[in-house]
C-alpha cells in the first residue's frame, strides 16, 4: 500500500471519527456571541479580505511597518532633495525632527551602514515576557516579546541614514522629554488605557534610533530601555 493510499484511508477514518464524536457530544457550555463578536462577524462577511488585513495588522505593527515603508518611499525623494557635499554630510546632525499635524517625524541623513546591524535585546524583561519575533533588515531591526496573556513589548532600532524616516502619530499621546542613561529621549504616553506607550532615544555614537513600547508606565519603560544591550548569544 502506498503512502498516498494510506493517507486517503486515514482521511476517511479521521472524518468518520469526527462524525462519531459529534454524534456523541454532550451538552456543554453554550456559545452566546457578544455584541463585539457579532459586529466583527458582520464586518468579516461584508469584506472578508479587508477584515483579514485589518486583523493581521495590529496598531503597533502598523507603526513599525510605516517606518519601514518610509525607508523605501522616501529613499529617492530625500536623496534628490538633500544634495549635501560629503564634508557637510559628515559634519551635519544626523536627524531632524519635524511635526506635521499630529505626527512627529524623525528625518535622518548620512551614509547607510556598510555592515549588518548589531543585535540588541532587552535584558530587564518584565516577568513572563519572552522573545517571539526578530525581524532583521539591513537598516532596521524589530524585536517582539510576548507573555502568555498575549501582551506585547517591542524593541526596534533603525540605523539613521539618508532616505530613512520614522514617523510617530501623537494624536493619542502626551509627549515628555526624558533621559535614557545619559542620552536624551522622548516618552510618548498613550492617553487611551490599553494602548501602548513608547519611549524613543537616539544614541549618536552608535548612530541608532531606538524605541521600546508596551502598555507600561514611564518608569518601567525607562528601566526596560536602560537595559537594552548587545545580545549575549548570536541571533
Amino acid at each position, binding site marked *: *500500500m502506498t*503512502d498516498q493510499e*494510506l*493517507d486517503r*484511508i*486515514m*482521511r*476517511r*477514518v*479521521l*472524518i*468518520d*471519527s*469526527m*462524525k*462519531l*464524536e*459529534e454524534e456523541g*457530544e454532550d451538552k*456543554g*457550555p*453554550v*456559545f*452566546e*456571541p*457578544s455584541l*463585539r*463578536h457579532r459586529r*466583527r*462577524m458582520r464586518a*468579516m*462577511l461584508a*469584506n*472578508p*479580505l479587508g*477584515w*483579514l488585513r485589518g*486583523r*493581521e495588522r495590529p496598531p503597533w505593527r502598523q507603526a513599525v511597518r510605516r517606518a519601514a515603508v518610509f525607508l523605501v518611499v522616501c529613499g529617492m525623494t530625500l536623496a534628490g532633495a538633500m544634495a549635501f557635499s560629503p564634508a557637510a554630510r559628515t559634519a551635519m546632525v544626523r536627524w531632524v525632527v519635524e511635526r506635521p499635524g499630529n505626527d512627529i517625524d524623525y528625518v535622518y541623513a548620512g551614509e547607510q551602514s556598510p555592515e549588518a546591524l548589531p543585535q540588541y535585546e532587552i535584558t530587564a524583561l518584565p516577568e513572563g515576557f519572552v522573545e517571539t519575533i526578530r525581524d532583521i533588515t539591513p537598516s532596521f531591526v524589530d524585536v517582539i516579546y510576548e507573555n*502568555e*496573556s*498575549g501582551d506585547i513589548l517591542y524593541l526596534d532600532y533603525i540605523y539613521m541614514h539618508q532616505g530613512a524616516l520614522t514617523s510617530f502619530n501623537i494624536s493619542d499621546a502626551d509627549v515628555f522629554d526624558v533621559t535614557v542613561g545619559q542620552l536624551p529621549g522622548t516618552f510618548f504616553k498613550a492617553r487611551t488605557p490599553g494602548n501602548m506607550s513608547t519611549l524613543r532615544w537616539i544614541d549618536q555614537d552608535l548612530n541608532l534610533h531606538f524605541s521600546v513600547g508596551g502598555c507600561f508606565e514611564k518608569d518601567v519603560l525607562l528601566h526596560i530601555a536602560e537595559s537594552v544591550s548587545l545580545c549575549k548569544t548570536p541571533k
Partner: protein
Amino acid sequence: MLSFYLAALESGGGREMFAEIYQRHHIKMERAAIKILRDQSAAEDAVQNAFMQVIRHFEKIYEIPCEELPFWLISIVKNEALMLLRKRDRTATLKEERFPGGAEDVSDYTALVELFRSLPDTYRRVLEMKVLLGYTDKEIAGHLGISETAVSTRASRGRQLLREILEKEGFQL
C-alpha cells in the same frame, strides 16, 4: 493561482460563497470552540482566528468535497482553540501522552474509527492537521507548541498503526 482565489473573495460571487459557508457551519464551529475552551471570550477569538485561516486558505475550499467541508472547518477551529488553550495553560497540551496500542482489538471498520477517535488529543490533532488540512510539520509544530521531530514521530506512529490494522484485517476501503 492563490491570487486568483483571493481575488474571488473580492468579488460578489466569492463573498457570497464565503457567506454561505459561514451561515451553514458557524454554529458547529462555535460549539467546538466553546467545548474546548469553556470560555466565551476565548471561544470567540478561536472562531475569529479560524475564519482568518479559512480566508487565507480559501483556495483549498475548492478542492474539498462538500461532505468533508464541515469537518475541515471544525478541525481548523479546534486547532485554533487548542492554540489559545496552550497560551492560557502551557501544560494543557504540552504534556507527553502515551501512544496507545489496541490494534489487536480492531476487527471491523467501526472499531477502527473508534480506536482513532480515542487517540490522545495531541496525536489526533497532528494527524488531522497533516492529513485533513495539509499543514507542514513546521506549521503543526507551531500550532501545537511541540518540536517538528515530535510532529513527525506522531504522524508516523499514526500511519504505522493504521497500516498494521489494515494489513492484519485486510480491510478493503
